[in-house]
């Protein structure tokens, strides 16, 4: 049965995040003076890395259940986007990520004070990537680089839980049609199943997000349809997780969100990277 391999130190898995860093990422999420898309995505990815680290933390330290890479694509072409001492690293074990954030910021969050009020609480917020927004959208090249990285990974980890690639973008590719590169990525597999490619389209408009669609017909334009076709079907275990989040989905949805707002970006990243079988 596919997607059932255990994720352990002896059999780690791999997550690759692709981030669109083109000029349009400077625009705000939704219309009006909201957070810039680039800032929102950087926060969401830093938060995702933090959650993965915490998931792999045990009393004795970090267990290397995952190797994680974050590639950006924009003005400078395609490349790894870690800053600080991990700069230039394509794929790093989660323990190295844990111990090498570029900095740990103090941020505040609002929490229930237990007496009907809200108080601000200081929290530590480790930062591994910074927001960047400039130039075009070389998405085809980003998918090809992800394929190369994962191909190397699969040679050394034939029985691993299949690698997961999440592509976060707000616009059309400027270096061709990415459908073929996406298909080649999805066609790779470990003994436990095919590589999963999920697409997260983020929006400057205030339209309602379309989460986990099961057919092209409901999507508003050709670009949305293209991203739908590029996305893997959700495996069964992830389907159950989406249901548990209270999202109503059909029997055969794709790992794709169109017009995502910040809430659905965070929710999608959480579901897309939640393990089913850590050992």
């Amino acid at each position, binding site marked *: 049965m596919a997607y059932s391999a255990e994720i*352990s130190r002896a059999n780690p898995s791999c997550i690759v995040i692709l981030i669109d860093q083109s000029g349009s990422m400077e625009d705000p999420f939704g219309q009006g003076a909201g957070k810039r898309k680039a800032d929102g995505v950087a926060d969401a990815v830093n938060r995702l890395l*933090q959650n993965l680290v915490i998931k792999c*933390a*045990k009393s004795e330290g970090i267990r290397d259940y995952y190797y994680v890479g974050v590639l950006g694509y924009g003005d400078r072409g395609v490349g790894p986007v870690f800053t600080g001492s991990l700069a230039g690293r394509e794929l790093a074990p989660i323990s190295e990520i844990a111990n090498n954030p570029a900095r740990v910021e103090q941020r505040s969050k609002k929490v229930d004070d237990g007496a009907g009020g809200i108080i601000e609480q200081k929290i530590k917020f480790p930062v591994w990537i910074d927001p960047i927004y400039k130039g075009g959208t070389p998405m085809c090249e980003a998918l090809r680089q992800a394929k190369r990285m994962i191909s190397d990974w699969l040679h050394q980890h034939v029985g691993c839980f299949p690698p997961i690639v999440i592509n976060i973008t707000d616009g059309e590719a400027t270096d061709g049609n990415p459908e073929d590169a996406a298909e080649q990525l999805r066609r790779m597999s470990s003994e436990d199943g095919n590589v999963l490619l999920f697409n997260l389209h983020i929006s400057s408009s205030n339209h309602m997000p379309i989460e986990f669609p099961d057919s092209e017909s409901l999507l508003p334009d050709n670009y949305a349809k293209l991203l739908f076709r590029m996305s893997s079907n959700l495996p069964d275990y992830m389907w159950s997780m989406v249901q548990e989040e209270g999202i109503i989905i059909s029997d055969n949805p794709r790992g794709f969100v169109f017009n995502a707002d910040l809430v659905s970006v965070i929710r999608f990243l959480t579901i897309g990277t939640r393990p089913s079988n*850590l*050992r």
Partner: protein
Amino acid sequence: MKICYRVFWLPKRGSSIEEYEDAFAPGAADGMLEDSNNELESKQFKCAVADGATETSFSGLWARILCKSYIDGELKISDNEILGQLQRQWFAEVSGRQLPWYAEEKLASGAFATIAGLTISEEKKQWSWSVTALGDSCFFQIRDKQVVASAPLSKWEDFNYNPALLSTRQASNEGILQEEKNESGQCKKGDVIYLMTDAISKWFLHRQALQGDAVSILENLNDKSAFAELVDEARNEKDSDGRPMMPNDDVTWTRISLS
């Protein structure tokens, strides 16, 4: 009546003994040897197994605290005051250490464990058992090589990755405490009782359903190395869906026989 008590346990494949996060009681600290028959003449006997959740930290410690509390007669899952004392005990043992940012964060989310506790007692020459359980650690009563009672689960299909777990955080226990299962029944000379954590419980029920020989297999095990061999084989063996018959998890089996 004479009670014989014996424990077999192993960490996950690929993990060290120090990383074992199940727990059982009584154990060496209570004057009980794990790897030999402890013969007791007693009118009451208590034992417990617990399974600390892999995704949380210091969960083995929490599992040990729960087991110890059960055999000391203190643990009542639904009693918030007793639970609060145990939670404070866990917190006192893990706090005050210099920890990196992620370990601090992890600690704040607490530790989680399942628990199954068994009491065997005699009243007016009648012997009975009672079980308290939360989650998927299981009790099985065996008579004439047949399973005659089980709790809280009795079908292998009922095991999943999301059992009810008792937490060191009060807030995380909301909605969980009512999952506590209490069962009781009669027992007599010749009965054998197993308390097991989830991976071996699931294997036991699955093997028993498929081939009916899980009891015989376990009853024929004589020592630790035979147990390790069985676990190794069961972890390699696949069911019809291609999943391991015994998931790669910490494994604990306590065997109690009445004679």
